[in-house]
């Protein structure tokens, strides 16, 4: 059963200095999905995220969470933020406590849990993100990759149903990026919804169930990765690249290496398999 | 003729807090090359860069610039810094002036040039980096991509022979990354040497003449991109990925789509051409 989590209706946002960040954007987000948000710098991704957490209020339009309109009184916000966690892009602005364990416990403590409960949550979150060894380290001694994992742990410890991540792999090398993506896969197995923004079209293509392309405060396209990246016009308009697996697949179809009837490869392994398969056909 | 620009001999660096950032590293950098420095966070890339500009002094070992040992008196440093420019990763820590033109003119002013000369240099640098339209804008209204270009312009305006860039494309989307790389290509045509550090193996593979892989304060490997990325052990040790063009090429050779005698593809276009060529062979 796919229940609707967020339903955004004609959402517009205009900042105090009159810049318009979102232009009557409508979007539906279903439970348990892995959603990638693509778009260039300044497309409005971060503004949208801040709305999903109730930090910004719409200039016009409405946001429904689990069918109820989002309200902005203290009690409603408390309940919304308990269920929706955001991991921000710059971990330096997210980690504000002196030590790792203090930082991870910031959220659960604010939920008013008992000390034992908080500790339980924190330990669980550290286990999921493999940050237990960093526990007593001061946050400013961590590497970027470690900081990002601690930031994720801090949100996980609040046990939200939806986790939003702003550019979780930006600035990380391949090794740490994979580590982060592994953490996300573990989380997703627990039926949590994950929404992330990224510049990495290859990551989005291979990882996401759904891809949302944003440009200039609007949603250009929202569908499964293959459908989205086949729309060349949209990809060009949003200044995106085509994922190389897809580009390669198309080149191989054109080059008659892969038959044009074959389903498009969704990741590197599938592509390699198709090439091996072609080879076997030739040998036969 | 390839003259040697930097010759680094057994360079070690130990910070005041006793972390050892460089371990008797030796490296030769030739004039007019495009060099990519790869390595995970904490490999010592930034420390190395600060040595090349005379900001850090070696704990042991020597650095020669154009055959002469680098000295650390004021006059020698001024001359070194006139010839070697660094663009740092975070433009907010590099741009200290409120207006773009003030910032770009800072370096040339320090060289003691006349106002007209300064203006000439600034205008030239703005033209190269396509920042002339930003001229009168205050720094705080610029986007990240614009700030990065202004930071490059500020270094270019000093007309150095070597330009060092720390992660010039980090945090930028595909569109702005390409813009930065275009700027670098323009600069390189003027016989300048460019050294950049990056996490993006695909960029390094396609762009660089030489790739240097660093790990834990040491140089693991220094050669042309193809040779470097063929050494699987080293790539693994430095937590790097194989560039997809190369990986794909190998898969196609294994899949017998491309003959194993063929030279390895150095970029996407070459790879596509080889596939088309294969197709034609089959048709014949």
């Amino acid at each position, binding site marked *: 059963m796919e229940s609707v989590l967020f339903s955004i209706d004609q959402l517009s946002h205009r900042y105090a200095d009159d810049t318009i960040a979102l232009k009557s954007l409508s979007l539906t987000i279903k439970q348990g999905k892995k959603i990638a948000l693509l778009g260039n710098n300044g497309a409005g991704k971060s503004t949208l995220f801040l709305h999903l957490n109730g930090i910004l209020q719409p200039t016009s339009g409405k946001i429904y969470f689990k069918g109820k309109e989002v309200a902005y009184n203290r009690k409603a916000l408390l309940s919304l933020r308990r269920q929706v966690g955001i991991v921000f892009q710059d971990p330096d602005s997210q980690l504000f406590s*002196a030590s790792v364990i203090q930082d991870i416990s910031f959220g659960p403590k604010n939920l008013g849990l008992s000390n034992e409960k908080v500790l339980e949550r924190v330990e669980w979150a550290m286990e999921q993100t493999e940050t237990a060894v960093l526990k007593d380290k*001061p946050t*400013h001694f961590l590497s970027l990759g470690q900081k990002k994992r601690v930031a994720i742990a801090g949100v996980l410890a609040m046990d939200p149903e939806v986790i939003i991540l702003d550019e979780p792999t930006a600035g990380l090398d391949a090794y740490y990026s994979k580590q982060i993506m592994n953490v996300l896969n573990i989380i997703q197995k627990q039926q949590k919804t994950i929404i992330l923004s990224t510049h990495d079209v290859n990551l989005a293509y291979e990882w996401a169930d759904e891809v949302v392309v944003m440009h200039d405060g609007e949603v250009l396209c929202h569908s499964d990765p293959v459908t989205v990246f086949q729309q060349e016009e949209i990809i060009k308009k949003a200044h995106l690249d085509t994922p190389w697996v897809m580009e390669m697949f198309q080149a191989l179809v054109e080059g008659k290496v892969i038959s044009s009837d074959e389903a498009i490869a969704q990741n590197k392994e599938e592509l390699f398999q198709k090439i091996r398969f072609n080879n076997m056909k030739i040998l036969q | 003729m390839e003259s040697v620009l930097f010759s680094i001999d057994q360079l070690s660096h130990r910070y005041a807090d006793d972390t050892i950032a460089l371990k008797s590293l030796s490296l030769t950098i030739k004039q007019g090359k495009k060099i990519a420095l790869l390595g995970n966070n904490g490999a010592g890339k930034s420390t190395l860069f600060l040595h090349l500009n005379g900001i850090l002094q070696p704990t042991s070992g020597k650095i020669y610039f154009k055959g002469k040992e680098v000295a650390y008196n004021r006059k020698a440093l001024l001359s070194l810094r006139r010839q070697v420019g660094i663009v740092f990763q975070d433009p907010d820590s590099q741009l*200290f002036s409120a207006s773009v033109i003030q910032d770009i003119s800072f370096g040339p002013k320090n060289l003691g040039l006349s106002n007209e000369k300064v203006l000439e240099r600034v205008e030239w640098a703005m033209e190269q980096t396509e920042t002339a339209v930003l001229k009168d804008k205050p720094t705080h209204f610029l986007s990240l991509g614009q700030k990065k270009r202004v930071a490059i312009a500020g270094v270019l305006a000093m007309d150095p022979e070597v330009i060092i860039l720390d992660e010039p494309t980090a945090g930028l989307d595909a569109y702005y990354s390409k813009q930065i790389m275009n700027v670098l290509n323009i600069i390189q045509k003027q016989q300048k040497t460019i050294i950049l550090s990056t996490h993006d193996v695909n960029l390094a593979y396609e762009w660089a003449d030489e790739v240097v892989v660093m790990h834990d304060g040491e140089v693991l490997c220094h050669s042309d991109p193809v040779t470097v990325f063929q050494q699987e052990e080293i790539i693994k040790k430095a937590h790097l990925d194989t560039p997809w063009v190369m990986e794909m090429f190998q898969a196609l050779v294994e899949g017998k789509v491309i003959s194993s005698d063929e030279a390895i593809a150095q970029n996407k276009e070459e790879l596509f051409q080889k596939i088309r060529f294969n197709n034609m062979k089959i048709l014949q």
Partner: protein
Amino acid sequence: MLREIIKKSFIILYFSILLVFIPKQAFAMHIMEGFLPIEWAIFWWGVTLPSLIIGLRSIRKKVTEHPELKMMLGLSGAFAFVLSALKIPSVTGSCSHPTGVGLGTVLFGPTAMSVIGFIVLLFQSLLLAHGGLTTLGANAFSMAVVGPLIAYFVYKGAKKVGFSFAISVFLAAALADLGTYVVTSFQLALAFPSEAGGIAGSFAKFSSIFALTQIPLAISEGILTVIIMNVLTKY
């Protein structure tokens, strides 16, 4: 005795009426542009300038030894400005703005702080429309000269007497804040003596009005500074 009580209850009434006028964001302590008569504006500029010059001289001396100090001071000015643009969740439910004078002084000393304070006030009048240019001298005297001095001496004195670090910091920050408002009230009283009570009567009126916002603010600023210094010393 009865008289005293009635007087007090009357003052309370008077303040409750005033409270109605307090908008959400009260920038109470900056004397606004044009409020001071020209002779007083000039007078306070004249009082403030010497301490600015002394401050600049002492900075110049230190900068030749440690060039990075200049960057440090500039960045601290930016920090102090940003601090003053933040809202403290205050005990009264309204929001107030920390001045950061106490914090800066404990860290940099009063002479450097007077220059930084002056620059911050300049930016507040130019970018936030708090205070003004003709009244900058008076505002700088209360907030950038007297405030830092009080913070400095209270902190040193409290340490000497043997108070704990936290209490010394709290007293320094809170008293600097209170001292600032007393000076501002005095400046206003000098410029606008009341008919009946003269300068003293006018001072009583101004200082009791500002006490309303400033005492809770001084307490929250003191607590905030202690929290910050505590965390900072742990780093």
